[in-house]
């Protein structure tokens, strides 16, 4: 018998949908800026892609700030606190479950309960994306809008070039995270149960 837990309050769901839409815009326009040429605008023409990318980036910074405040002042923040002791063992157990145990019909080693809405792998990846990758994306993205603050040279490289490439690498990491995030979301009680929970707020244990 599965239990339901109210893990996604309204503000988290609103932030999540905003985050998802803006990330999609940023990824599509980011790829357009990276691969389009004067004859081929990909999904969005280059010039329009630049504008949409800039607007989405600024809005994402705002929504991220709200998320940070939400985590600071509500209990949602506790899900993003990593416990280092025994972390390696927990990550191994969860990884083993995804790759092997799941197919053997084993029980999830860290099921959702009242205290935990993320398993150890999810927790590490969410903390990495939210507290490491996104802030660095914001810093590099804003720096390219105010390039006078960028170092002229770092080691033997142009500061602009490095900032730019770092931004692109971080963008790729977010794309990879998004694919894994979407796929792992299908591994709930049923393939759609996790998608339902981010809409209703109630998460089903399995």
């Amino acid at each position, binding site marked *: 018998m599965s239990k339901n837990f109210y893990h996604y309050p309204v503000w988290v769901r609103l932030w999540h949908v905003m985050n998802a839409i803006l990330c999609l815009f940023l990824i599509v326009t980011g790829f357009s800026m990276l*691969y389009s040429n004067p004859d081929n605008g990909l999904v969005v023409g280059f010039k329009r892609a630049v504008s949409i990318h800039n607007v989405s980036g600024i809005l994402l910074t705002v929504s991220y700030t709200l998320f940070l405040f939400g985590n600071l002042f509500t209990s949602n923040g506790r899900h993003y606190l990593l416990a280092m002791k025994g972390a390696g063992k927990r990550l191994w157990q969860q990884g083993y479950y995804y790759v092997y145990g799941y197919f053997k019909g084993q029980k999830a080693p860290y099921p959702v309960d009242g205290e935990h809405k993320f398993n150890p792998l999810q927790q590490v990846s969410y903390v990495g994306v939210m507290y490491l990758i996104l802030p660095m994306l914001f810093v590099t993205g804003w720096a390219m809008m105010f390039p006078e603050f960028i170092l002229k040279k770092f080691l033997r490289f142009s500061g602009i070039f490095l900032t730019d490439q770092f931004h*692109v690498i971080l963008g*790729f990491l977010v794309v990879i995270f998004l694919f894994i995030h979407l796929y792992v979301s299908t591994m709930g009680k049923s393939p759609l149960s996790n998608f339902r929970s981010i809409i209703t707020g109630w998460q089903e244990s399995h």
Partner: protein
Amino acid sequence: MDLNKFSFYFLFSVLLISPAGAFPLQEKPGEEKKQLSLYAADNEKNCLICHGKLVYTITDTVSGVTMKRMMSEQNVINPEIFYKSVHWSFNCLDCHAEGFKSFPHPLEARFESGWNCLDCHGNDPNYAQYKFEEIDAEYRRSIHYTATEGLFTCWDCHDAHYYNPLARQDSSSRDQIFKLNEMCLRCHGNPDIMGMISDKGLDKVLPKHEWLPNVERHLQAVRCLDCHTRMTDSVLVAQEIVPADSAVKNCTDCHNKNSILMGTLYKYASKENRDEKGFVNGVIFNNDSYVIGANHSKFITLTGKIIIGMTLAFALMHIIFRMIIRPIKRYNE
């Protein structure tokens, strides 16, 4: 009172007294400027009567004989250009020695110690945005200063009578490059002038650039400063001219995505866009400083594609296994 303080109070009082202070300078046509110029009438009557054209007239006060003479070219001030310059509102004697009031000019007046830019513009918050102190520091490190022991001054390139920043002029970048390079070639293309400041005489400019492929195209499209200065981010136009043997000589210093030029151009275009159109219009919506493919590193994008591909392949395999074991799982349940 030291010279800087004096200059500040002087300029401040001039701005207060001058009717020009009440009007934005950029919007006035030359003729109006003449009318507004402080002591304009005196200028016309005095200095510019002779120094405003190549031919001047003198009268012998004893015999009454009048004759025409040619003015030395370097002492002629073109009033049309002067009144369009940033210093248009000044009277000649605001900057030149009082001795020039009398005619014929006494010899000692010719030994006047001229003002330099920092005497008026240095350490003044009103001019902070132009970074005169940093420009001065760069100039003092430049070969122009070190090789001439300071005899070379701002005026040798930037004539105070005609100074009008190129960046504020509505001309194409090609025109601006031409004007900037003309500034360098005024001396470096003229054996007489070079002979005056250097015993070595003039090394011809063009032959020294023959190693460049498409030399003419380079000289039309690139400012001398782009290769012959040490660029910094803080000053818009670099002033630290380096010795000829330290100039940029590697093609890849410019023709490369990781180049100094690329970085400098991006910063320049982006800042100009923002200053001109504001953050919303200049940066967010019409940021012309982005260049298609400029951030396209083949290695990084290929690695990104491979990792994304591997992620998707792994997910696909996982899905296939899930579909295979699904009936078994259901049966067990």
